[in-house]
C-alpha cells in the first residue's frame, strides 16, 4: 500500500473571490526575493515594523521578506512542525514565539545547506539576507529573535528600529507627540545612514516619497474596505481578511497591491449594495483577537456553518489605519517624517476611544471598544497564544472591558499561531456552542440598556 504523504490542512474556503487570489502576494514576496538574489540584489529579512523601515529599505533596492509572514505561511500549509522540531532540538524552548522558532529552524537548515535554500522549503523559502531589520514595536520577544539568528547568520547585521509606545495619559501630555515624532525621525535618519553605508549607495528621497504616496493610497483603500464591513449582514469575514491583509500590510507601496484593493473594494461593495452576507444566515457577529491559528483557519468556516457566526472584525494591528487628517501631513515634505507620522498614527489612533472609556493601553485594547459599536458585535473571540506574550497580555483585560462597558461577552479559546499541537478545535467548538447562549443573553441585556445593537 502506498504511503499517504499528503498534509491534512484545515484551510478556510474564504468567501471572497479576491481573498482566494490574495495568496499570490505572499508567494510573490518569496519568489521575487529569490529571483532578486540570483540577480545580485540585496535581501533583507524584516520584522513587521508598521511601515517604519520597509519603505526605506525597498527604496534603496533591497528586497524584503518577512519571517513572521513566512511562519504564518508554513503553519497554513501545515509545514511548520519540522522547523519547530529543529528549533526544539537546538535548545530553543517551545514557549518562545512560534514565528521565531519556525524562523530559527529554517535558518539552521539554510546554514546547514551552505546558505542555499533547502529543496522543498515551503513557498520556495527565504532567500539569504544581508540585513535583518528588527523592530521594537509591539513585541518584547522580537528583540532577542533576530539576535539569536546570529547563531546561523553570524555575518548579517541586525538593525533595530524603535518607536515610543506611550500610555494614554502620556499621549495627551503637551508636546509629547512632537517629541515622539522627533525621536522616530532621528531613528530613521540613523537607519538611512546605516543603509547607505551597508549598500554603498545613497537613498533616493524622491523615489521614497513616490512609494509613500502609493502606500498611503493603498492603505486608504484598505481602510475603506473595513468601513464596508460594518454592513449587516457582514460582506466579508476574518477568513477573508487574513488573506486580503497581505498586500496592504507588506506591500502597500506596490501598485499591484492598490489594483488588488480596487477589486476587493468592488467585490465587497457589490455585496453590501445587494445585502449579501459573507456567510448565509448570519446570526451572530463576533470580533476576533489576536493572531489566528494559521493552521486551522477553516475552524471559523465551521463556526459559521454550525452557529451562523460571522467574524466581522479582527485584530487591530493588522488593519490599515484611519487616514491621517490633512493637517497632519500639510507642509511635510520630508518622507522620513511622513513615515514617522504614519507609524505613530497607526499606534496612537485609538487613544481618543481609550480616553473616552478610561482604559489603557490605547493599542491592543481600545480599538475593540470602538469596533464593538461600529460593527455591532455580539461577542468577542479571544485567542490567547501559547507562544505570544504581547498578544495575550491584554486579551483578558479587553474581554472584561467589552463585557463591563458595552455588554459584549467574550469566549476564550486558547491555541497558537504556529503550533497546532496546542489547538483543540473540538474543545473550541464546545465552548462556542455554549457561548451562543451567552451572546443571546447579552443581546437581551443590551436591549434592556437601550443600546443600539
Amino acid at each position, binding site marked *: 500500500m502506498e504511503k499517504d504523504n499528503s498534509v491534512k490542512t484545515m484551510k478556510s474556503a474564504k468567501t471572497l473571490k479576491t481573498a482566494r487570489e490574495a495568496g499570490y502576494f505572499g508567494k510573490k514576496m518569496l519568489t521575487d526575493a529569490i529571483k532578486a538574489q540570483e540577480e545580485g540584489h540585496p535581501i533583507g529579512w524584516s520584522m513587521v515594523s508598521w511601515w517604519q523601515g520597509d519603505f526605506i529599505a525597498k527604496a534603496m533596492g533591497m528586497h524584503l521578506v518577512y519571517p513572521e509572514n513566512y511562519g504564518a505561511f508554513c503553519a497554513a500549509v501545515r509545514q511548520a512542525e519540522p522547523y519547530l522540531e529543529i528549533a526544539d532540538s537546538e535548545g530553543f524552548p517551545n514557549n518562545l514565539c512560534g514565528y521565531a522558532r519556525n524562523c530559527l529552524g529554517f535558518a539552521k537548515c539554510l546554514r546547514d545547506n551552505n546558505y542555499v535554500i533547502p529543496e522543498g522549503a515551503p513557498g520556495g523559502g527565504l532567500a539569504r539576507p544581508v540585513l535583518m531589520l528588527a523592530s521594537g514595536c509591539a513585541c518584547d520577544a522580537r528583540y532577542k529573535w533576530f539576535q539569536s539568528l546570529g547563531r546561523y547568520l553570524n555575518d548579517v547585521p541586525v538593525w533595530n528600529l524603535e518607536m515610543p509606545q506611550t500610555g494614554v495619559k502620556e499621549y495627551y501630555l503637551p508636546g509629547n507627540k512632537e517629541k515622539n515624532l522627533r525621536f522616530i525621525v532621528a531613528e530613521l535618519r540613523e537607519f538611512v545612514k546605516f543603509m547607505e553605508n551597508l549598500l554603498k549607495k545613497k537613498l533616493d528621497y524622491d523615489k521614497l516619497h513616490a512609494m509613500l504616496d502609493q502606500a498611503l493610497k493603498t492603505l486608504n483603500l484598505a481602510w475603506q474596505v473595513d468601513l464596508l464591513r460594518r454592513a449587516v449582514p457582514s460582506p466579508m469575514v476574518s477568513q477573508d481578511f487574513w488573506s486580503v491583509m497581505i498586500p496592504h500590510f507588506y506591500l502597500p507601496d506596490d501598485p499591484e497591491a492598490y489594483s488588488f484593493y480596487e477589486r476587493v473594494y468592488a467585490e465587497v461593495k457589490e455585496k453590501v449594495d445587494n445585502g449579501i452576507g459573507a456567510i448565509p444566515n448570519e446570526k451572530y457577529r463576533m470580533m476576533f483577537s489576536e493572531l489566528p491559528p494559521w493552521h486551522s483557519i477553516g475552524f471559523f468556516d465551521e463556526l459559521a456553518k454550525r452557529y451562523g457566526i460571522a467574524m466581522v472584525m479582527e485584530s487591530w494591528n493588522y488593519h490599515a489605519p484611519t487616514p491621517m487628517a490633512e493637517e497632519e501631513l500639510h507642509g511635510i515634505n520630508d518622507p522620513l517624517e511622513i513615515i514617522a507620522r504614519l507609524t505613530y498614527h497607526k499606534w496612537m489612533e485609538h487613544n481618543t476611544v481609550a480616553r473616552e472609556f478610561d482604559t489603557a493601553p490605547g493599542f491592543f485594547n481600545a480599538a475593540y471598544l470602538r469596533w464593538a459599536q461600529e460593527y455591532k458585535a455580539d461577542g468577542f473571540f479571544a485567542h490567547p497564544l501559547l507562544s505570544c506574550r504581547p498578544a495575550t497580555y491584554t486579551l*483578558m483585560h479587553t474581554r472584561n472591558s467589552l463585557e463591563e462597558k458595552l455588554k459584549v*461577552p467574550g469566549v476564550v479559546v486558547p491555541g497558537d499561531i504556529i503550533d497546532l499541537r496546542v489547538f483543540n478545535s473540538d474543545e473550541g467548538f*464546545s*465552548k462556542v*456552542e*455554549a457561548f451562543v*447562549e*451567552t451572546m443571546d*443573553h447579552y443581546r437581551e441585556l443590551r436591549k434592556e440598556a437601550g443600546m443600539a445593537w
Partner: protein
Amino acid sequence: MGYTAGLDIGSAYSKAVILEDGELVSYYVKPTGGKFALSADLVLEEALQKVGLSLAKLRYIGACGLGVTFISETFNKVTELSCHTRGVHYLMPTVRTVIEIGNQSARVMKTTPKGKVADSIISDKCATGSGRIMHIMAKVLRTDLEDFSRLSDKATKPAKFTTNCAVFLETEAISRVAEGTPKEDIIAGLNQTLAGKISAMVHRMKIEADCVMTGGVALNAGLVSIMEKELGHKIQVPDEPMITGAIGAALITAEKAEN
C-alpha cells in the same frame, strides 16, 4: 412529552437520568472504568429498570460528556456547559454561579434566570485543576475517594505542597507519606491546593448570587469548606452533584425536539 433520558458519559463516571414530563423520576451513576460504550449502556439500562421502563418507552435521549460518541443508541449531543447550567437551574433555580469540578477539568459558569450560560471559564488542561488529582492521591494514600471528606476533617496540620503540577504533587505526597505525615494532613493540604486554584477562577468570574458546586469533587466536603472560606461565600451542594449534566442534556433535548 413522555420519557426522556439524559446521559453524561464522563471519563471517571457515567450518569443517566430519566425524566417523565420534565420530572426527574430515576437516575443511576457508576464508574466508567475506561469502558465508555459499556458503561453508557449500563447506566441507561439501570436508570430505566429503576422505574420499570424499557428503552422503547423513551421518546428522546440527550447526552454529553467525553465519551458521548460511544453511546450506541440514537441521541442528541448537547454541549456540556449548557447541560450543567440547565441541570443546576432545574434543581436549584435561584443559583447563578456554578462551580463544576469533574475528572477532566474545572468549570465556572454564570447562569441566566432561565438556566442558560451567561458566562463561563474552563480550567487549563491540567490535572491539578480537576478531580483527576483526587484519584491520583487516593491511589498514593491507598484510600477510597469517599473517605477524603471524613479524613480531611481530622487534619491537625495540613501539609504544604510547593507545586501546582499533578506529577510533582504526587511525588511530594509520596515524600510526605515517607516522612510519616498523617494522610489526613496530606488530604487537607491537597484540598487547599485545589481550592486555591479553583478559587482563582471563580474570582475571575466574579461570584454572583447563590453559588453551587457540582461534579464528583463536590462530594469532598473538606474542599467545599475551604472554598467557602477562600471565596467568602456560601457554596451549596445538591444531594446528587454528579447528575446535573445528564439532567440538562435531557431537558435541552426534549425542549429542542418539542419546539
